[in-house]
């Protein structure tokens, strides 16, 4: 489904270059839930953002569902409609109502009729449990509700993969659960998911595989079971000691 090979992303700033993503090669299968964890600045968000072209990479390659990112003929907008993304800061469109947030891209990108887009939007709002808020503007919603709308917005495009970039980090603690519940439900339904998160409980419960990144590299990967109980690398042990 997703294959990255020797992915390299360099940030240049103030005379120093940082290898934010350094030689990352991995494969993610259809229906797999991969959780990426690591200390801040480890390049996990940058890696995620490379997967839908929000960051351009400097070397290596990404192939998603047969679409080759390095091929100059590839239309990145076509890739993006198949790869949904949920952001830390939700990034809902504040000038659109909740329902309009979900229908906008359906009508202008997927070319669906307004009626079709709305019925799909309402079904997804019901699925994430906030059907009654469809006419509200995002600013009237709590953080947890906004993030659930953002998930519905991504789902409305019928993506093959959804990328989650620290979806619960900006939430008040009491709202984390409602967002994670929606994500767990998606995982059960077989959605392919790549999740950058600090929620270790979620990682342990839902992930099929965990990638541990540090300084732009994948340091260790494995099942949650082996990762949390018998980490092999020193850096992994250090990290787990700090957070658990």
């Amino acid at each position, binding site marked *: 489904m997703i294959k990255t090979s020797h992915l390299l992303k360099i940030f240049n700033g103030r005379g120093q270059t940082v290898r934010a993503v350094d030689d990352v090669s991995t494969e993610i299968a259809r229906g797999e839930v991969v959780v990426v964890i690591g200390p801040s600045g480890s390049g996990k968000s940058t890696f995620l953002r490379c997967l839908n*072209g*929000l960051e351009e990479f400097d070397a290596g390659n990404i192939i998603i569902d047969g679409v080759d990112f390095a091929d100059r003929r590839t239309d990145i907008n076509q890739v*993006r409609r198949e790869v949904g993304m949920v*952001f830390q*800061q939700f990034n809902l*469109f504040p*000038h659109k109502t909740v329902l309009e947030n979900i229908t906008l891209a359906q009508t202008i990108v*997927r070319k669906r009729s307004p009626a079709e887009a709305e019925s799909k939007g309402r079904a997804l709002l019901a699925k994430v449990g906030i059907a009654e808020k469809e006419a509200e503007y995002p*600013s009237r919603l709590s953080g947890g509700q906004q993030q659930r709308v*953002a998930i519905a917005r991504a789902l409305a495009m019928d993506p093959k993969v959804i990328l989650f970039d620290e979806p619960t980090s900006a939430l008040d603690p009491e709202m984390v659960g409602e967002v994670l519940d929606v994500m767990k439900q998606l995982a059960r339904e077989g959605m392919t998911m790549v999740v950058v998160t600090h929620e270790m409980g979620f990682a342990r419960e839902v992930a099929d595989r965990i990638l541990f990144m540090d300084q732009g590299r994948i340091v260790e990967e494995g099942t949650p079971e082996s990762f949390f109980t018998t980490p092999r690398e020193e850096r992994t042990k250090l990290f787990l000691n700090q957070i658990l």
Partner: protein
Amino acid sequence: MYSTSKDNWKWQLLLAGILICIVVSMVVATKRVDYTWHWERVPGYFFYHSEELEKAPFDGQVTAITQQGELSTVTVKAEDGELFSIEVETAGVKVSTGEELFEGDILGSNPGWHIGPLVKGLWTTIWISFLSGILGMILGLVTGLCRVSKNPTLRGLSIIYIEIIRGTPLLVQIFIFYFFVGTVLNLDRLVAGVCALAIFSGAYVAEIIRAGIQSIPKGQSEAARSLGMNSFQTMVYIVLPQAFKRTLPPLAGQFISLIKDSSLVSVIAITDLSKAGREVITSSFATFEVWFVVAALYLAVTSVLSQFIFWVERRLSVSD
């Protein structure tokens, strides 16, 4: 800290007192320079009643005068047989049947209300400002988009345009536009005036639009792009609507400035409100009154505009 709400009336009283002082001192000041006010002369320059003289369009002979009560129809026949008929007030008929006429002879007169120079000037100011405002908005939007574009050519052009326009006086720009561009392209003075104002306000609008676009968090366009929208769709559906809302107050200020700046086109002999004011003074000698009236008219137009913008702002704030 003062509790201003409790003692509100005291402050209102003070405000009224200060305003009264200003008015009184102005009256005293004009007394000292021995100025006689003639406010009664002003309304005539808004609307006036006069006899409109009707003239014969060609040489010929009056063939008939038919009276229908207050009005009479005068018919003139030219030597080649062409007929001309006109209705005039019966009391104002100046010719009789059979009379030989030359072109331009007065047939009669019609009394009527006419629009005075101040109203005409006000109208010119309004439409010139409106038209150049719309053009300036379009120009500013395009330039603002170029200004934030990744393309160095577009960015360079927009920066040069903005810097030149913002760094030179509007008065000089109007002269250059009228005497140089206008001569080269053979432009009418009105076209030159409107273009100069539009180009002038476009540069300021561009900077406002640029600031507005850059004030929208990057996450907004990232979210739009992540849904598969291209950069054009992202701009049109996501960034510009939000930027527009944020830039309304500075845009309103810009258009209010434009209305006032439009008074400068009088230097290329466009009879706008301020030039009309100057012309009225030459015949009325009511210098103080006319300038006060002209100022009040500008104030009226700009107030209407700011109320309208205020209304739009309130309507757009529902999503806050």
